[in-house]
């Protein structure tokens, strides 16, 4: 939960107006902000799966 909170709020800060230029950096034709957004979704899925697997074991 702590790890996911860090990921979520760091992405939120990076995509705020103050850091917009950094979020707009293009990587393989798409802006960094897009990858960070996808990262929030994928990391959420992975962390959830790890958590559930740990509990079930």
């Amino acid at each position, binding site marked *: 939960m702590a790890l996911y909170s860090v990921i979520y709020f760091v992405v*939120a800060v990076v*995509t705020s*107006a103050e850091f*917009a230029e950094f979020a707009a950096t293009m990587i393989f034709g798409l802006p960094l*902000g897009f990858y960070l957004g996808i990262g929030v*979704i994928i990391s959420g*899925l992975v962390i959830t799966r790890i*958590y*559930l697997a740990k509990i079930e074991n």
Partner: protein
Amino acid sequence: MDNIVALSILIVGMATFFLIGIYSRRWTKSTAEFYVAGGQIPWKLNGVAMFSNYASGASFLGVAGAIALFGIDNWWLALGFFAAWVVVVLILASPLRRSGKYTVADALRERFSGPEIRFLTIVAGLTIGVLYLVPQLVGAGHLFNLLVPGLDYIFWVAIAGGMTAVIVVMGGMRGTSYNQAFQGIIIFGAMILLFVLAMVMYFNWNPLNMLTEADNVVTPTQVVENDAAQEILSVYPIESNGDEAMEAAFYSSEVLPEEPSALTPGVNVKDLPNQLSLVLGLFLGVVGLPHVLIRLYTVKDAVAARKSTELTIISLAIFYTLTLFVGFAAMMLLYPLLTDLINNGEVGKATNTAVAELGDLLGGQVLLGVVLAGAMAAILSSAVGLLIQMTTTVAHDGYTVLLRPESSEEQRVLVARGAGIVLTVIAVLLSIVLKEENVAQLVGMTFGIAASTFAPVLLMTVWWVRATKQGIIATFIVGLIVSLAFTAAKYMGMDTLVGLPVLVNPALYGVTAAFATGIIVSLLTKDVGAVDHFMHLAHDRDGRDSDAGVPRED
């Protein structure tokens, strides 16, 4: 009448919702059945129902519509909605399911005795429920009034309210669950259809084209702000087909070569304090929404609750990712239409109807009908979830526990049904009175209050052994007052309140004040309640991973 095929599909969908509610009536004889379907909803069905409960009209139409108008920055709403579910799974789903019976108040009562906390949960639960239900009905009234001209706002509000009451009063939680699962399939299917058809018909079967092409487009909003709308509309009128609309979209970057593209982050976001307040409200808001949490009690044990929430998370991950692609597809394929609407000051209409217009463009009347049914399903699904939560709060937490513990099963179910009807009438009347109010502000207020009240109360109760009854009560009161005060300040157009800037969402102040108060008061007092019993129950300290199964008896 125009759109007869689309309307027919919508009516068939609504008739099915109605029949499911009627059919489920046979299972609503006992309170356990009415409140939580006897804890016997299969986890897969519950997972789809939770997805549907959560993916309201705002998610189905609003997020993609906002991306179509404003670009990638508005995807943040979808990311916030998604991340909030991860929080629910990681820190609340299992302990809450193990320690409660019907409602969130039950879980709190396992640790703290006395009526005070239950009374506060009733007040906050009903406040949040009504504030969230009213915008669903207001949204339904405006949306269908726009999409189906000729039938006015009050008609659609009454239809949406009436359908909500029938599903809940007749079908109880079981009928609500079946309906929400069916509605979830429609919502998800409609979004998938829009994505696939747009990709196949206009983007060469490559979803990434939908994003990379958007890098050559200036958003319709920026075009209007730079007074370039007429220049584009004079070349590409609003009657343009999909291919011409895409040419219009690309033409925008020729007209405004210095403007950032629709794919550029940071064009439409606020400063850091506003951004943090918004994302905090989204992050913790869901943790504090009782109508979402009540679904954890409808499955047989904590394992099933976790499986349900995981299925919901996977569905939400796909759904909210697709909203980005569908939003950009709508922007490019409806470019002249959206530009014209924004240029005429009809931003709300452009946002709410973009997905429906995209359906009409891609699949004609049939897909428009599916999108309309999806929109109604999304609105109804959230509305029935809210109404059954409020009904259970009144009938169980209020009538059964606080007022008439000796009442019979029949009396309790009767009160629940009556509460459902009365609450619906109140919500419909409020929706008519608040017709002109900003729906987004009402929803924002709900998330801010939920994040400032239920969220800190639940997190401290479930995870902090030093939390005291006095601390929890203080948290509730301070969180409610601060979040309401800053929401009211924003609503009244104030720039500052007690020297603090008024932000887009009250969560930053409300959550901070609530947690700070709860921690300080808890450290100054000693009544930690039945903490050993509660922690043993919530966190299964013996190492067992399931609970007794069906809801426990008092």
